C-alpha cells in the first residue's frame, strides 16, 4: 500500500470514530443539588404533591387542588405549584375549574407583581420602601387624622370568613370605619329584591339540578353570575336527562344565551314585561302555589300579550309557547340577573322575578336560601354615596383600598380621580398594578392566595380553607398579617399572634372532630347555617314595586358593557394567558372590539376589523368592529373590562350602575385595526362539522377504500368522546391545556398572522342566530394524513392509537401541518422565553419545544404514562377513569370523556357506540380517535 493511501485510511478511520463520539458534551451537565435536611414529608422526585386550598380569582371561591413539585431554583430545593385542578368533593365546584381558575398561576408568577412596599414620591414615581417604613408612614397619618377628628376608611372587595372577622375586630379596636365592601359585579337589584321580599340580603343558590324548566333573564349563568362552574355542571347533567328545557332572555348576545335551548331577544330594558305577564297569568289561571296578597298584586302591571309583544318585540307565538312550557313544568326555576337587572327597570324585574319564584313555589324547591351567599356586607353603588361625599369634603383622612379596583371599574359618578386627592393618604393593598394603585400613596404588596393561610365563606353553609402551597416569592404579606401588624403597632400590644395561628385557631374551634391535616386536605368544612323558612314580606314587596316602577321607553343605539368570561370585571385582564385564549363568541384574542350586529354592519358598510369612533355623550373612544351574529340591530356590546374606566354614571332604583348607555354615535374612521380573529369563518359552510342530532340515525358515508394497513391495537386504544350538547364553549379546557403542556404564549402579532399555539381550541359555528361550540384538538387519526408525509419520521402512529410527535426528530418541514385537515398542528416559529418566575410553573413531565419543532395535542401522554406506571407497580391494567387529560379534568360540564376504546365497558366506548356519535370531516376517512356527540338543534328565533 502506498504511504498516502495508508494515511488517508488512518484519517478516515479515526475521523469516523471521532464523529460518532461527538455527542454528549459537558455543556449538557447540570448540578445535582441535595437537600440540606430531608423534608418532613417524604418527597418522591417526579411525583407531584397535591395540596387543597381555595381559588380567589373571583368571589365564587371554588375549592382547588394544587399540584406542587420539588424543583431546584437558584440552587435551592423549593416546592412550587405547577398546575391547579378543581377539588373533588368541594361543595362549590366538585372537582372542576373555570378558565380563570386555571390561569391563576399566571397571577402568582406575574412579572409585574409588587415585590415590596412602595411609596409615591413627589414626582409621582413609586420608590420601594421597607415594611417598617410603610407602617410608620401609615400610623403617623392615622394618628394625625384621628387628632383632627377626621375618619379613617377601609374599603375592600368582598371579604368573608376569617378575614372578615379580623377586619371587623381591627376596625373596632383601631378606630377605622369599615366601608361597605365593593364588588363591581354585585347584583344589587337582585339582592335588594331578595331583601325587600324575603328579608334576606343574600343571593340564593339556584338549584338547576332540581328543575325541569329554566327561565333565565339576563343572568350570565355560564360566565359570571352566581356559580358558573356549578351552573355549567348542572345544566349539562339536566340536559342528559332529555326532558330539560332552558329559555334565556337577553337583549344582547352572551355565551349563556347561545347555549340555551331557546334564546329570546327582548328590547333593551323591557324584560320586566315578560315576567309581569307570567306572574299575572299564573294568578289568572289559578296556578299559583302561593297566591300573592292583593296589595302586592295590584302593583303588578296588567299586560295583554299584545302589549308585551309591543314592549319587548318578542312575537306573540313565542310568548305563548313560553307560557305553556312554564305552566307545563313541574319544577320551574326563574333567574334574573346580569345586564337585565343592571338597568333602569332592572330593580322592578328583580322584584317581579322574586315574586314569581314565590308564587310558583320555587322558593324552597329550586331557589334555595339555606345555601345562599351572604351579601350583607357588600354595598351597592348607592350605598357608597355617603362615604364618597365625606371623602369629597376631606373628612376621610386615610383611606385603605384592598383587593378592589374602584378607579377602573366604578361608575363615573364616583369621580375618584378627583376625590382621592382629598385624602391625606391612600393606602393600596394589592398584588398587581392597576388604575387604583396608580393613584395610591403607599402600596402594600399582598401575598397571593397560593402563598397564604386563610378561610373564606363562599356560601353561608361552607367555610373553604386556604393554605400556602409555596413560600412567598417576594416580600409580600397576607392582608390578615398586615392587619395584625397594624393592630399590634397601633395599640402597642405585646402578643404576637400571626394570621396563620389566627386562622388555625378558628379551624380547631370549628371542627373539633377532625384533626387539622385532614381538614386541610378536605379543603372545606360545613358551617351550620340558619334554616328558618322564608316568608314573603307583603308591605315591603308592595313598596319595592311602587318605588321601582318601570319606564316604558324605547332606547336607541345601545351599547352594553357586560363583564366577560375571560376577565370577569377586569381583574383578570392582566393575566397574559387569558389574553391569549380567544373569547369564544368572537374568537378575538388580544385587543378591544365592539360587537356589531349583522344588520348594522350591512347598513353602515362595516367589516370586521374596521375602526369605529364610538361616542356617547361626552365619552368617546376608537375601537375595532367585530360582527356578532344574533345581536339585534341597534344593540352593541363592548366588554366592560376593555375600558380603563366604567363610562356609566346612572344608578337604578336599587343603587346598581346601569350596564349600558344609549344614544351611541358610531362612524367608521376609515382605518383598519390589526385585530386577531382566530377563527377562519363563523360558519361551517354546511360541511357537517356540527352535525345536529336527528331522530333517525344518519346514513353513514359509503365505506371507503383503505389504502393503508389498519392498525392493530393490543391492550389499549386511547380515545376521546366530546359531548357537544354539554360543551358551553367556556374554554376552561384551553387554559388547562396551556398550563399542563407548557404551551408558550405567542402574543398579538403572531395571532394576527394566524399563528396560534393552543393545542385545543373552541371553534364557534353560527347558523343564523344560533351557535355551537366545537372543541377541536389533534384527532389522533388512525389514518393520519400527517404521518406519511414527514420526511424524517418524527410523527408516527403508536401501538396505543396515539399519533406521536417526537420533538427532537422534527426538522420543521411543516408538511404535516399542511396535510392536517383539522389544522390541529402547531409550529414553533421562535424560541420561547420563560422568564422567572413563570418558569417555575412549567410541568417537568412535558418537554419544552424549541424553534423549528411541530407540536400538538398528545392526549396528555405524560398522564397516560404515569397511569400505566402506577398500574404496573400494582401489576394490573389501567382502569377506566384513571387517565384523565387536563381538558377532561377541568371541564365544568363534563363534556370530555377519555378512556380505552378496547374496553367495551368504558365510558368512552359506550359513547362512541351511541346513536349521537359522529366524526368531524368523516368523509375524509381519517378515522379519528375523537368522537363527537351531536347536539340537539336549538329552537331558534
Amino acid at each position, binding site marked *: 500500500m502506498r504511504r498516502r493511501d495508508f494515511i488517508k485510511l488512518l484519517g478516515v478511520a479515526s475521523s469516523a470514530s471521532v464523529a460518532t463520539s461527538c455527542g454528549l458534551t459537558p455543556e449538557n451537565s447540570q448540578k445535582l443539588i441535595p437537600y440540606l435536611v430531608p423534608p418532613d414529608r417524604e418527597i418522591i*422526585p417526579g411525583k407531584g404533591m397535591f395540596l387543597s386550598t381555595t381559588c380567589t380569582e373571583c368571589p365564587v371561591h371554588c375549592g382547588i387542588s394544587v399540584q406542587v413539585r420539588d424543583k431546584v431554583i437558584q440552587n435551592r430545593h423549593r416546592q412550587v405549584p405547577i398546575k391547579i385542578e378543581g377539588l373533588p368533593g368541594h361543595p362549590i365546584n366538585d372537582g372542576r375549574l373555570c378558565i380563570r381558575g386555571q390561569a391563576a398561576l399566571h397571577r402568582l408568577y406575574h412579572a409585574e407583581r409588587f415585590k415590596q412596599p412602595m411609596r409615591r414620591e413627589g414626582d409621582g414615581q413609586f420608590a420601594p420602601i421597607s415594611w417598617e417604613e410603610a407602617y410608620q408612614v401609615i400610623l403617623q397619618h392615622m394618628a394625625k387624622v384621628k387628632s383632627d377628628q377626621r375618619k379613617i376608611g377601609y374599603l375592600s372587595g368582598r371579604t368573608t370568613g376569617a378575614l372578615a372577622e379580623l377586619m371587623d375586630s381591627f376596625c373596632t379596636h383601631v378606630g377605622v370605619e369599615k366601608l361597605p365592601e365593593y364588588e363591581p359585579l354585585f347584583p344589587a337589584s337582585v339582592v335588594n329584591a331578595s331583601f325587600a321580599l324575603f328579608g334576606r340580603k343574600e343571593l340564593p343558590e339556584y338549584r338547576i339540578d332540581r328543575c325541569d324548566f329554566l327561565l333565565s333573564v339576563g343572568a350570565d349563568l355560564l360566565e359570571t353570575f352566581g356559580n358558573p362552574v356549578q351552573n355549567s355542571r348542572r345544566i349539562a347533567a339536566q340536559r342528559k336527562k332529555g326532558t330539560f328545557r332552558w329559555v334565556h332572555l337577553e337583549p344582547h348576545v352572551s355565551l349563556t344565551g347561545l347555549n340555551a335551548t331557546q334564546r329570546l331577544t327582548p328590547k333593551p330594558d323591557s324584560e320586566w314585561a315578560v315576567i309581569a305577564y307570567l306572574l299575572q297569568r299564573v294568578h289568572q289561571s289559578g296556578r299559583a302555589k302561593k297566591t300573592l296578597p292583593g296589595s302586592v298584586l295590584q302593583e303588578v302591571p296588567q299586560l295583554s300579550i299584545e302589549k308585551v309583544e309591543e314592549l319587548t318585540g318578542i312575537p306573540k307565538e313565542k310568548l305563548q309557547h313560553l307560557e305553556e312550557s312554564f305552566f307545563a313544568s313541574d319544577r320551574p326555576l326563574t333567574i334574573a340577573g346580569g345586564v337585565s337587572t343592571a338597568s333602569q327597570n332592572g330593580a322592578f324585574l328583580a322584584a317581579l322575578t322574586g315574586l314569581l319564584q314565590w308564587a310558583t313555589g320555587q322558593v324552597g324547591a329550586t331557589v334555595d336560601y339555606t345555601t345562599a351567599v351572604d351579601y350583607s356586607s357588600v354595598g351597592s353603588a348607592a350605598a357608597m354615596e355617603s362615604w364618597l361625599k365625606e371623602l369629597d369634603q376631606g373628612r376621610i383622612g386615610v383611606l385603605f383600598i384592598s383587593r378592589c379596583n374602584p378607579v377602573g371599574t366604578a361608575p363615573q359618578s364616583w369621580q375618584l380621580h378627583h376625590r382621592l386627592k382629598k385624602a391625606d393618604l391612600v393606602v393600596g393593598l394589592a398584588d398587581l398594578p392597576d388604575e387604583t394603585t396608580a393613584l395610591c400613596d403607599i402600596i402594600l404588596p399582598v401575598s397571593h392566595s397560593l402563598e397564604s393561610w386563610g378561610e373564606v365563606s363562599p356560601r353561608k353553609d361552607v367555610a373553604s380553607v386556604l393554605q400556602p402551597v409555596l413560600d412567598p416569592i417576594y416580600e409580600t404579606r397576607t392582608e390578615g398579617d398586615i392587619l395584625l401588624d397594624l393592630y399590634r403597632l397601633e395599640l402597642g400590644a405585646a402578643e404576637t399572634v400571626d394570621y396563620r395561628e389566627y386562622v388555625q385557631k378558628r379551624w380547631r374551634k370549628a371542627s373539633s372532630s377532625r384533626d387539622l391535616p385532614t381538614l386541610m386536605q378536605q379543603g372545606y368544612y360545613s358551617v351550620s347555617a340558619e334554616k328558618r323558612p322564608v316568608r314573603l314580606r307583603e308591605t315591603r314587596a308592595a313598596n319595592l314595586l311602587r318605588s321601582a316602577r318601570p319606564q316604558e321607553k324605547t332606547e336607541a343605539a345601545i351599547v352594553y358593557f357586560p363583564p366577560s368570561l375571560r376577565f370577569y370585571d377586569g381583574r383578570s385582564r392582566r393575566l397574559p394567558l387569558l389574553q391569549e385564549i380567544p373569547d369564544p363568541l368572537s374568537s378575538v384574542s388580544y385587543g378591544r372590539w365592539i360587537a356589531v350586529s349583522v344588520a348594522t354592519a350591512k347598513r353602515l358598510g362595516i367589516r370586521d376589523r374596521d375602526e369605529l369612533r364610538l361616542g356617547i355623550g361626552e365619552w368617546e373612544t376608537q375601537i375595532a368592529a367585530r360582527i356578532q351574529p344574533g345581536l339585534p340591530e341597534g344593540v352593541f356590546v363592548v366588554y366592560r373590562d376593555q375600558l380603563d374606566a366604567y363610562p356609566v354614571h346612572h344608578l337604578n332604583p336599587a343603587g346598581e350602575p346601569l350596564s349600558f348607555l344609549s344614544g351611541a354615535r358610531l362612524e367608521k374612521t376609515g382605518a383598519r385595526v390589526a385585530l386577531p380573529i382566530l377563527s377562519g369563518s363563523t360558519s361551517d359552510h354546511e360541511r357537517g362539522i356540527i352535525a345536529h342530532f336527528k331522530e333517525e340515525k344518519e346514513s353513514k358515508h359509503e365505506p371507503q377504500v383503505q389504502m393503508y394497513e389498519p392498525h392493530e391495537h393490543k391492550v389499549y386504544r386511547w380515545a376521546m368522546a366530546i359531548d357537544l350538547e354539554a360543551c358551553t364553549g367556556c374554554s376552561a379546557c384551553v387554559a388547562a391545556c396551556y398550563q399542563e403542556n407548557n404551551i408558550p404564549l405567542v402574543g398579538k402579532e403572531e395571532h394576527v398572522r394566524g399563528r396560534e399555539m393552543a393545542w385545543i381550541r373552541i371553534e364557534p359555528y353560527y347558523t343564523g342566530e344560533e351557535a355551537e361550540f366545537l372543541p377541536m384538538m389533534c384527532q389522533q387519526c388512525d389514518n393520519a394524513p400527517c404521518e406519511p408525509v414527514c420526511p424524517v419520521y418524527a410523527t*408516527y402512529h403508536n401501538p396505543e392509537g396515539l399519533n406521536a410527535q417526537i420533538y427532537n426528530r422534527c426538522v420543521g418541514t411543516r408538511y404535516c401541518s399542511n396535510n392536517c385537515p383539522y389544522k390541529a398542528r402547531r409550529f414553533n416559529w421562535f424560541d420561547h422565553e420563560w422568564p422567572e418566575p413563570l418558569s417555575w410553573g412549567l410541568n417537568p413531565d412535558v418537554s419544552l419545544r424549541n424553534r423549528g419543532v411541530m407540536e400538538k395535542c398528545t392526549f396528555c401522554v405524560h398522564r397516560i404514562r404515569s397511569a400505566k406506571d402506577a398500574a404496573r407497580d400494582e401489576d394490573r391494567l389501567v382502569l377506566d377513569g384513571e387517565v384523565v387529560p387536563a381538558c377532561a379534568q377541568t371541564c365544568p360540564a363534563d363534556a370530555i370523556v377519555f378512556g380505552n376504546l378496547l374496553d367495551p365497558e368504558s365510558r368512552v366506548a359506550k359513547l362512541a357506540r351511541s346513536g349521537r356519535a359522529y366524526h368531524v370531516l368523516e368523509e375524509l376517512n381519517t378515522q379519528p380517535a375523537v368522537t363527537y356527540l351531536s347536539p340537539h338543534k336549538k329552537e331558534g328565533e
Partner: protein
Amino acid sequence: MAVKRWIVPSIFFVFLSGLALVLLGQNLLWKRVYRQPEQPIAFSHEIHVGKLNLKCTTCHTTVEKSIRAGVPAVATCMSCHKAVAADRPQVQKLREFWEKKEPIPWEKIHNLPPHVYFSHKRHIQAGIDCATCHGEVRVMPEIRQVRSLKMGWCVDCHRAKAAPLDCYTCHK
C-alpha cells in the same frame, strides 16, 4: 516481481501501530468528551461502597420508588461525619457546607437530554443492577461516566430484554 522480505512484517507493524493510535485517540477523545468536571468535594465511592460496603440505596434513597435516584441530603452525610474522619480535608469541606447551611452543588455526571423520560424505579424493578449502567462504582475514587447513555445503547438493551420500544416510552 517478487515481494521483498520486509514488506509483509512492515505492513503488519504499520497496521497494528495505526490501530493502536486510533484506539489511543478514541480513548483520549472519550476521556475528553466525557471528562468529569471537578466536584466540590472529592467524594470517593471506592471508600464508601468498596471499603465500607454501604449499599447504593443507603444514600440514593428514592431509586426504587421514583424516576430519579437522588443524592443524599447533607444531613445524611453529617450523620456519620460529625464524628467520623473529621480531620480529613474533604470532610472539613463537607462540614463547611453544613455550617454555612449551603447544599453541596454536586456536578451531575450522568446527564440525559431534557426531552427524555427515564425512570430508575422501572429499571430497578425489572431487575437491572446499578452497575449495568453506572459501571463498577465500588472501584471508582471519582465517579465517572462509563456508558454512552445514547439512545442506541438504550434501544439495544430494550430489544434484548423485550422492553417497550415505543417512542413515547422515553420521549416526553
